[in-house]
């Protein structure tokens, strides 16, 4: 049944004739449709539709129709868009979306597994990279050799496992971001879909650059945090002891927060320029974003409320700045 209508030699669809009469078709497609109409002896249909247009406009004058439309627009400001009415239940849409995206999900999973395996082989290098602040700054404290304590026999194994999985996540990042964009752009126009490659490239670049910057910044933050130790000669000795699991967790959290933060402006700008959301939508979404930022911060910084706020507030502020930036750039482009 799928292919029985696929013969372009069949009658010309009314849809295309309408677009032709409206002057909406590109020149080459218009010529093709005209040729098809001529081949079927239906060129008169163009004239018929033109006449029908005039009759309709005479019967329903533009001024009265426009007034009614504007009245409905004013009334609809308080109601949701009509085209959203009557959709299939949410779980069915999720299920169908999952079935349709199955190959892409499989590709993402494969990239993750491949990355994780590679990460496992590179585990020692990754640990040394992540522990850069320790071996960079530790000698300054006058100690012989930088070291991190492994408090239990499986500490090292767990840390390597986490590092391998984090590397897998980085490998799967382009696929994940692509899925995220396709999900956000579903049901919109082809121009949004054409932005997919640019979105993925920009997001990955922003994320990787941000994570790299975080790794560069880690030594400074490490130095700052360890400088809170009591000065030498004081009555109490406070000696920082670095536990492997805690350190890996701390460093990976920092990289994750930086990576996510870098995605915020990229996502906001692309959503705005693709026309998926209006500026008002972005402004209205701020309260939900603030809630999401709090949830995210609570997940990555579960220790105390202050740490949660220290992560959530800058993320929310970054969202606000991104929305403002999108507004300014969009106005400049439109003007």
């Amino acid at each position, binding site marked *: 049944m799928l292919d029985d*209508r696929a013969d372009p030699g069949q009658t010309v669809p009314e849809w295309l004739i*309408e677009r032709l009469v409206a002057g909406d078709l590109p020149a080459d497609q218009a010529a093709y449709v005209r040729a098809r109409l001529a081949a079927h002896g239906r060129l008169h249909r163009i004239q018929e539709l033109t006449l029908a247009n005039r009759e309709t406009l005479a019967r329903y004058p*533009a001024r009265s129709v426009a007034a009614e*439309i504007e009245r409905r627009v004013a009334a609809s400001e308080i109601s949701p868009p009509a*085209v959203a009415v009557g959709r299939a239940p949410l779980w069915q849409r999720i299920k169908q979306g999952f079935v349709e995206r199955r190959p892409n999900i499989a590709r993402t999973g494969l990239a993750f597994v491949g990355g994780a395996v590679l990460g496992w082989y590179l585990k020692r290098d990754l640990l040394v990279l992540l522990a850069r602040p320790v071996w960079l700054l530790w000698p300054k404290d006058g100690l012989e050799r930088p070291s991190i304590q492994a408090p239990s026999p499986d500490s090292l194994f767990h840390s390597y496992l986490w590092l391998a999985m984090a590397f897998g996540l980085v490998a799967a990042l382009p696929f994940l971001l692509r899925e995220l964009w396709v999900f956000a752009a579903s049901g919109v126009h082809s121009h949004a879909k054409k932005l997919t490659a640019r979105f993925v490239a920009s997001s990955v670049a922003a994320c990787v650059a941000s994570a790299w910057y975080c790794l560069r910044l880690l030594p400074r933050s490490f130095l700052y945090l360890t400088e809170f130790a009591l000065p030498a000669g004081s009555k109490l000795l406070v000696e920082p002891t670095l536990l492997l699991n805690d350190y890996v967790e701390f460093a990976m959290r920092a990289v994750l927060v930086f990576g996510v933060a870098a995605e915020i402006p990229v996502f906001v700008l692309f959503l705005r320029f693709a026309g998926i959301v209006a500026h008002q939508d972005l402004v209205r979404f701020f309260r939900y974003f603030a809630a999401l930022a709090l949830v995210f911060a609570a997940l990555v910084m579960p220790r105390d409320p202050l740490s949660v706020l220290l992560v959530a507030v800058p993320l929310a502020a970054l969202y606000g700045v991104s929305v403002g930036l999108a507004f300014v750039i969009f106005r400049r482009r439109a003007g």
Partner: protein
Amino acid sequence: MGLPVEKLYESHGPMVLRRCLRLLRNQAQALDAMHDVFVEILRRQELLHDAAPASLLLRTATHVCLNRLRSERRHPEDRDEALLLAIAAEDDGPESQIAARRTLDAAFEVSPASTRVMAVLHYVDRLTLDEVAAEVGLSVSGVRKRLRALQQRLALLEAG
């Protein structure tokens, strides 16, 4: 308001009205739906980014009309069995009509709005898969996959 409504209606209104009439088969309902189509366009005018809005208007008209038909089907007291058949009918034989109607039925039941529009474009408007893909901004294989999923769902319904 930003968008010149009168101008847009003068250039594309009759086309939208014909589209609504073709799907709803009722002049009063079609006129009402046409107004709603322009309301939708005005509310989402950021989507109207190019100088050739006919495709977007026709797709929006299809969305609005299908939602109306679906809403009617939820209220059996207003149900018009002949309506879907009329949409699916056109010039084909009875078997093809029934098959097309069943496809539309299945589409109304479970499919997302975008698949419903694709089904109407392909089965009712007789656009080729290439043309449907161009209209909805998907790849041909994407459209084929959606319609195939629809038919599989239909086959399951028939088997069950």
